[in-house]
């Protein structure tokens, strides 16, 4: 074992004896001449397109839309025939809210799927943005 260590040490000495390679004189000046015309690039600061308030607004709008959909699209008996639900019916229903109201909500499938889809993309975007942010500030994502 000792002979292996000795031989590694001897090898190290031999390699070190070759020493460094020295560049020609004036390398620093040549580099500084190029530095004079170069500029420091400022790092890009990641700024999300939609901020925290934006996401909050989207979430509140989504919930609001879900609740209102019960009143606007949840029944077929009070349609005015023009495609627009009579607003008086909406206000009547708002006054009739009872404890079992949540269970009675009937959300149209298409709206539910759209909302699930929207929430999926929002979550995905958030995860990607977080990853990008971490990578930018902390180097390679681990």
């Amino acid at each position, binding site marked *: 074992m000792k002979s292996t260590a000795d031989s590694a040490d001897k090898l190290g000495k031999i390699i070190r004896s070759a020493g*460094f*390679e020295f560049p020609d004189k004036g*390398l620093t000046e040549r580099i500084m001449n190029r530095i004079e015309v170069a500029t420091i690039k400022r790092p890009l600061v990641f700024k999300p397109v939609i901020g925290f308030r934006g996401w909050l607004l989207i979430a509140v709008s989504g919930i609001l839309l879900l609740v209102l959909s019960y009143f606007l699209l949840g029944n077929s008996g009070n349609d005015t025939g023009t495609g627009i639900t009579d607003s008086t019916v909406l206000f009547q229903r708002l006054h009739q809210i009872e404890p079992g109201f949540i269970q009675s909500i009937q959300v149209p499938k298409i709206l539910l799927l759209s909302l699930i889809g929207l929430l999926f993309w929002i979550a995905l975007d958030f995860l990607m943005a977080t990853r990008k942010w971490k990578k930018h500030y902390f180097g390679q994502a681990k």
Partner: protein
Amino acid sequence: MDKLADADIIVQVIAGNKMLFAHLVDRYKTMAFTLAFRILGNREDAEETVQDAFVKAYEHLAEFRRQSKFSTWLYRIVYNTSITRGRKKKPAMMEVDRRTLLHEDTSQADSLLYGFTEEEAGDFIRKILALLPDEDRTIITLHYLNESGIDEIHEITGLSKANIKVKLFRARKKLQEYVDQISDSVALYSINVQ
């Protein structure tokens, strides 16, 4: 001014004192040049690579996050720039035939046993190192000349730590074989002379 720490110089350079960057160049140009030369095999390419690397380092100085030493960050730039240049200019790389080395450098090997002149030693070791693959040569150079540990070599080259350990072991073994072969041929040479 020479005693200013790298971090202080970097802060001042980013603040606009460009000329202080010359201190960083002076501190690290020799190792940077040695590293580039070991990868590329010729002085002209090595010098251009070192220039490019320092300019890149300057341009991206604001992105240096100080998680590692400035030298480690710089040598990584030098390493990557050298590898990129080496790929473009592979045919120009210095190739040394092992047989030629063994037969022609007996006199140098003789000096290995009875005392090298500095110039002979450098020339001889350069030729032996040239027999190794690029990555092995880089690892050996960083390990012995820059006294880098496995972690630092990993940061500079981007190779996995396990891979570095294996390459370092193999490179040492190969170099030892070359040195032993030279020693043997010197011994035979001495017997024949007597």
